[in-house]
């Protein structure tokens, strides 16, 4: 430091004489703190984030990075204030009083902070997971002190307060490596049910995205108004979820059509009549076929 000062005096001697010696030293320390220590702290926090992300996960990496960065910035700021001659004792005292006031005034924020700590400890999800909260589904971008940030599938940014996440039912879509797709299929009454079961088995077996194990679930779930209802549950690796859902529906439609299995659908008869004439309503002895083409009368 002394050598540096001597060197500065040689170069800028005339000008430095105008400035008190203590102030020059303080200024140099401040410069070192701001331009050397602070970037080092930030770089160090980045290194720590990488290390902890690799070792424990993205969420832990993010938390450690923020802790180190915030602590470093606060400490550096306090030291800078100290260099400028501010006494830290009254500052901290004032901060305590202000903090108390703020705490009373911002109970929600405090609740969010505490909820955030619970979220970090409980780890119901991590950065990069896809979660559903209420009507919102998205990828977790960050888990912060007050809130969790999501990117929705249509690329919107959503901020959900931590308190909401603690209180609400949350679904982590990508937590487990495999998922089941449940498809409700109805077949017309009178259909050969063992044939339907066999066909559904074949559909699952022949689709390369469908996992052979766990075995597909095929169950008759009830007798509906116009159909015998099946639950067809097929397992898939989470990455192939959408691809399998699309292809399996296509397979069911094609296979059922090729094997003459009717998928009933609601019918609507549109009757057009003038106000003078009576509506041609009546009863019919025959039960209309569920798969018959919709009719229009009038």
């Amino acid at each position, binding site marked *: 430091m002394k050598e540096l000062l001597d060197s500065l005096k040689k170069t800028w001697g005339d000008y430095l004489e105008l400035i008190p010696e203590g102030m020059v030293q303080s200024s140099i320390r401040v410069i070192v703190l701001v331009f050397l220590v602070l970037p080092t702290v930030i770089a160090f926090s980045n290194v720590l984030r990488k290390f902890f992300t690799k070792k424990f996960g993205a969420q832990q990496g993010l938390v450690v990075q923020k802790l180190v960065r915030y602590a470093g910035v606060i400490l550096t700021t306090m030291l800078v204030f100290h260099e400028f001659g501010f006494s830290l004792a009254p500052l901290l005292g004032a901060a305590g009083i202000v903090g108390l006031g703020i705490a009373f005034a911002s109970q929600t924020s405090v609740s969010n902070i505490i909820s955030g700590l619970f979220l970090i400890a409980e780890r119901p999800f991590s950065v990069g997971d896809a979660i559903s909260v209420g009507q919102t589904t998205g990828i977790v971008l960050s888990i912060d002190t007050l809130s969790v940030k999501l990117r929705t599938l249509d690329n919107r940014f959503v901020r959900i307060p931590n308190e909401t996440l603690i209180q609400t039912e949350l679904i982590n879509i990508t937590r487990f*490596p*495999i998922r089941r797709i449940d498809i409700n299929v109805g077949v017309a009454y009178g259909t050969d049910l063992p044939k339907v079961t066999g066909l559904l088995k074949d559909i699952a*077996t022949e689709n390369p*995205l*469908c996992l052979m194990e766990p075995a597909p679930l095929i169950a008759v779930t009830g007798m509906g108004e116009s159909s015998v209802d099946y639950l067809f549950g097929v397992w898939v690796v989470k990455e192939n979820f959408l691809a399998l859902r699309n292809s399996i529906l296509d397979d069911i439609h094609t296979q059922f059509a090729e094997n003459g299995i009717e998928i009933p659908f609601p019918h609507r008869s549109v009757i057009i009549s003038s106000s003078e004439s009576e509506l041609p309503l009546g009863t019919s002895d025959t039960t209309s076929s569920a798969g018959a083409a919709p009719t229009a009368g009038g």
Partner: protein
Amino acid sequence: MEISTADPIWLHPGEQSLPPSGRVQCRELTACWEFDHEELRVAINPPPESEPNWQRWTVETEGGDISIVPMVPDRSVVFEPLTRFFLLPAQSTRIYIEIPLNIAFKWNGQTLVEAPSETLSQTWFGEFDAGEVCYWVAARAHREAPVSRDNTVAISPLMLSNRSDDTLEVSRICLRTCGLNLYRADGVIWTSETEVIHRGGDAQSRVDVVDGPPPTLGSATLLTSRRQPLTRAAVGRTFRSLMEWTISTILEE
């Protein structure tokens, strides 16, 4: 040039190079290649009556060889014997499994594209919260080595030993194919032999890959080296319990 599965299409770099253009048909896989004007094009399963969806590489004109080599599947294979069998305590048996292979197009030994000769179903091996995606092969477990000259299938010898006090029901076998070499002997493709020792209960099976060609072969030529050495992490259970899945099915009902 048309090559079918009956032709000896598996080549070593330097042994024989493919012509500048051609088409190969292996089971469900059709692959075409063309090489001209410093551009190499490969198309996998091109549509029958339209322009293939070429994958293109720019390569140097001179000194290049296109070759097709067999590869073990890129994931482990769960094998379901069509007829389940039991292994009594302190007994061992050697079985032979036929595994459909992938084929890889290589340029001077570098893999350009790889595709399975047969689309295999996928399955999950493990628990609901942890495990691995594997291919599914349901076939006969042979007690004698089958005579196969199909260039898209490898015969994989498996030595099973039951060192537990209980009878072992062999209904599923997870074969870690990534740790197996491929050999050729008398026109037949073989994998390295795998030794599995079952210790019973929840203990993991000990899985070892025997170095070199299968001991039952006289002499064999190394065709393709293993994708990766068999690590401790890759060696898990081989004969799985389906307890949790059974419970899940009961709850569903």
